[in-house]
Structure formats: structure tokens, C-alpha cells
């Protein structure tokens, strides 16, 4: 135990990313060469999902990325084939946040001939890391960035697409340190992921922030949803009655500003969460309603 702690502290003192020397701490096998580790990292980074399919999803991409490692570790052809087969089983996780640490850790373990640990690590971590990665990317990061970018684009600014473009590069570049994090941690990556105390707190915090921003986005993005309808009302003032035309929108504004955007979002939310309709159906329903309202001049 104390030896492990010592090893970890030794590792954490080194700041360089490309150290093929994790094995030297355990001492059983020669460390993987730097170029093998680097080649595996780039294969995973660039091509992981190129052969994504319904049957085994990211499995083949994982095997392809691992091939340089398998080649270096196993000299015997039958051993190589056995190792390749192990990676041809179902695998799927979040590709940019989840997979790099898993892959990094399994590269290190594969270098130690720890085939069994590799398999259980993949199975054990792909679910939790898919959840964490998808939450960070799809619920917290992408919507907020996308709304900013889209509103810039709708006002004619080139910065809209540029922001999205830079976001993609950001997540791609982040895959490099995430991979080496996994590689240095080895099996310890499982402990890091399962002790989620900090992680849940961060997620909770960012969820609050996301909620507040979305609350502001709904009226600002959908501000154009207004009705041009007018109605005539009879007003009596100073004993005389006369009629006047009132814009329906100003009456609605007096009740609740941005009432129509709120109603549309609430309606769509009810279709999705209440009636459990798929996003495609909700899209069709909203599209038809909005088109008809627009065509008849109601909205």
C-alpha cells in the first residue's frame, strides 16, 4: 500500500505527458515505447467511431487504436489474436470525454499483460463515463454555446460559426490530456471515476448555472413570437362611450411578458415529458402549428 502511494507521488511529480515508464514502477514488463503509446493515442483520437455500428458500436475503433500496443506487447501470433479478439466485444461510451481516460488506462494495463483488468475496466467504466461525458457536453456545454453562437449568427455575425468551430477543437484537444491522465493512472482511473463526490458537486453547480441561463434564453431567443392580432373594445370615459383598437400583444404583455414563448416551451415540454412523444413528433407538431399560425397571420 505504502509503495503504491509512493509510486503515485513519484508519477504525479512528473509533469511531462509522454512517459512510457508506468511499467517500470511495477517492474514486471518493459515499458511501452513512447512511439507506440503516441500512435495508439492518435488512432483513438482521430478514428474511434469511424466504424460505429449497431452491433458492437465503437468496438472495432477501439481494437484498431490498440493494435500498436498489442503488436509491441505480444510477440506470439496466437497471443496477439487472443488479445485482438478481446477488444472485438461491445464497447460504447462518450467518445471525447469518456473514452480517452478509459483507453489511456487500458493501454497502460495492456502493456502489463493485464488482459483481464483491461476487459473489466472497459465494461465497468464505459457506462458511468458515458453519463458524465454526455451530461457535460450535451446538457451543459453545447446548449449554452450553441445559443450564443446561433444568436450571433442570426444577427449576421461570422463569430457564430467560429464559436462552434472553436468548441469542436477545444474538445478534441482535451482528449490528449485526458488520455495521458488515464495512462498514468492505469487501474487507478476506476477509483477516480467512482469517487464522484467532487464530480456530482460540480455537475450540480453547473446545472444551476445552466438553468438560470436557459431561463433568460427562452424569452430572449423567442422574443419574435408575438401576435399581430388586434381587438376592438368599447371604453366609457367621462360619460361618453367610444370604441378603440387594442393590440392583443400589449394585453398579453401586461399579464406576463413573453407569454407566448413560455407557453410554447411549456407545451413542447408537456408533449415530450407528459405524453412521452419523440422529439421528431414534437418537431412536426410544432412546425405545423407555427406554420398555420404564421400563414393565417395569427402569429
Amino acid at each position, binding site marked *: 500500500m505504502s509503495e503504491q502511494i509512493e509510486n503515485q507521488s513519484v508519477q504525479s511529480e512528473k509533469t511531462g505527458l509522454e512517459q512510457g515508464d508506468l511499467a517500470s514502477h511495477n517492474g514486471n514488463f518493459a515499458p511501452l515505447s513512447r512511439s507506440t503509446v503516441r500512435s495508439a493515442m492518435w488512432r483513438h483520437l482521430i478514428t474511434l467511431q469511424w*466504424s*460505429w455500428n449497431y452491433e458492437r458500436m465503437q468496438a472495432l475503433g477501439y481494437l484498431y487504436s490498440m493494435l500498436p500496443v498489442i503488436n509491441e506487447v505480444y510477440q506470439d501470433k496466437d497471443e496477439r489474436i487472443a488479445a485482438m479478439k478481446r477488444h*472485438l466485444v461491445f464497447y460504447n461510451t462518450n467518445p471525447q470525454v469518456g473514452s480517452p481516460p478509459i483507453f489511456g488506462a487500458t493501454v497502460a494495463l495492456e502493456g502489463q499483460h493485464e488482459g483481464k483488468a483491461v476487459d473489466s475496466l472497459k465494461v465497468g467504466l464505459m457506462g458511468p463515463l458515458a453519463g458524465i461525458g454526455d451530461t457535460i*457536453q450535451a446538457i451543459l456545454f453545447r446548449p449554452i454555446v450553441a445559443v450564443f453562437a446561433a444568436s450571433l449568427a442570426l444577427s449576421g455575425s461570422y463569430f457564430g*460559426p467560429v464559436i462552434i468551430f472553436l*468548441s469542436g477543437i477545444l474538445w478534441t484537444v482535451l482528449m490528449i490530456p485526458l488520455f495521458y491522465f488515464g495512462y498514468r493512472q492505469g487501474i487507478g482511473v476506476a477509483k477516480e471515476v467512482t469517487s464522484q463526490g467532487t464530480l456530482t458537486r460540480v455537475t450540480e453547480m453547473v446545472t444551476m448555472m445552466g438553468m438560470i441561463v436557459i431561463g433568460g434564453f427562452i424569452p430572449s*431567443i423567442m422574443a419574435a413570437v408575438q401576435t399581430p392580432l388586434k381587438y376592438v373594445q368599447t371604453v366609457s370615459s367621462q360619460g361618453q362611450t367610444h370604441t378603440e383598437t387594442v393590440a392583443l400583444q400589449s394585453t398579453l404583455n401586461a399579464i406576463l411578458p413573453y407569454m407566448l414563448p413560455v407557453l410554447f416551451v411549456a407545451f413542447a*415540454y408537456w408533449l415530450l415529458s407528459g405524453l412521452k412523444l419523440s422529439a421528431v413528433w414534437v418537431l412536426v407538431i410544432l412546425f405545423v402549428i407555427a*406554420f398555420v399560425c404564421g400563414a393565417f397571420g395569427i402569429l
Partner: protein
Amino acid sequence: MSYSIWIALVLAIWAYIGIVTTLGPGLWWQEALVSGFVTGVIVGNIPLGLTIGGSLTLLSLGLWTYGGATIPDFQTGSIVGTAIGALGGGFPAGFAIAVPTALLMTQMDVLGRAVTTIFIHGADHYTEEGDERGVSAMHLLGQLPWGLTRAIPVFLAIWLGAGPIQSLIKTAPAWFSNGMITAGHVLPALGFALLLSMLPLRRYWPFLLIGFLMFAYLNMPIIGIAILAVAIGFLFNMIQTRGAVNV
């Protein structure tokens, strides 16, 4: 008005690159805003690419391919929509094409994901023989069904379809344009609703109200609301960690 075969080819290649770079390394070029913008550059109408891409982005806010789920293909939608709208007819025409295209393309997505299964069976076969080059080839060729299920529809739609569709839409009356523009305004509701349906709304709804109040009643700009959100988030974190320390 119609497009030459070369424009169709360039856009098809762009569609192919967009989806494959999404699979890896994950460059977000399939995002409607990026694909619409680049299409706008290619067909020479950047403002249209920005508005169509921006509108489609807003209605895709909560969409994500969880576990490999199929979602409306706004990448192809924005390419085809921008290209057709650019022939004349602008946003209403382009948007009218983009949304149905995105919905129809879900079928092509399913096809691409299914056909790629062939390649993993090929990989099984080559693994059995210990043929690593064969395995590598299977993986690298796996991009073909993915890319072609986007590139071929884009190519055909732009080369053969754009002209006829365009002349059809150009004769559409004003109410059609009004309907399309309104749809563009309303559809972000779907994006927001999808997002809220995935967030723990029951627990966090007060935060949603705070954001709404800030904009609707206090007219605070969005950047201001974002800064407020960061402050509130850290404040809550502070309160919670202090509680933990005291215990």
C-alpha cells in the same frame, strides 16, 4: 436556376467530411451553424447560411446522439436548405426544405449505422487469421456507409432537385413565407423543451425562474445573466461545502 454538377459534388464532399470528422476526432463540423456557413461560402450566400444554420441550431439545442440514437440530421438539412434557398427565395424557401430534409435523413442515418455492421463481421474474419492489415482496413472503410449516406442524398438533391424544387417554391404565395418565418421563430421551443426534459427540472425550477425574471422584467442582457449564474452557482457551492466542513 439550378446548380452545376461541380457545386453538387463539392457540397457532397463537404457533407461527407462533416459527418466523418464528427465520428472522429469530433470537430463539430456537423453542427448546422458550421455546415450552413460553409455551404453559404460555397454557394455564395453567407448571410443565408448563417440564418438557416442559426435557426436549425436553436431547434437542436437538446438533441444528442445518446448511446448512438438517431436524431434529425440538421447537418444535411442546413446544406440542402442553404443551397436551395440561395437560388432565390431565401430563408422561407431554405427553411421549408431544411426541416423536412433533416427529418427524412434520419432514415439514411439508420441505414448507415446498420450497413457498417458488415465491417465488424469482416474484422472478426481477419482477426481469426491474425491479419492486422485486414482489421485496419475494415475499420477505416467503416466511414464509407456513414459518409455516403450523407453525400449521395446531398449530391442528388443539389444536382437534380435544386432547380425543380426552387421553381416550385418561388411561386409560393406570401402566406407560405409568413408560415415558414413563424415556424423559424417558434421551433426553438423544441430545443428548450428537450433540454429542460433532460435536466432535473423538479429540483432546480427556481433557477429557471431567476433567469426568466432577469430578462423579462429587469431587461438584463444575456451576458449579465450568465455572470449572475456563475455567481449563484459558486455561492451555492460555498454554502454546501461550508456545511460539510462544519459537520
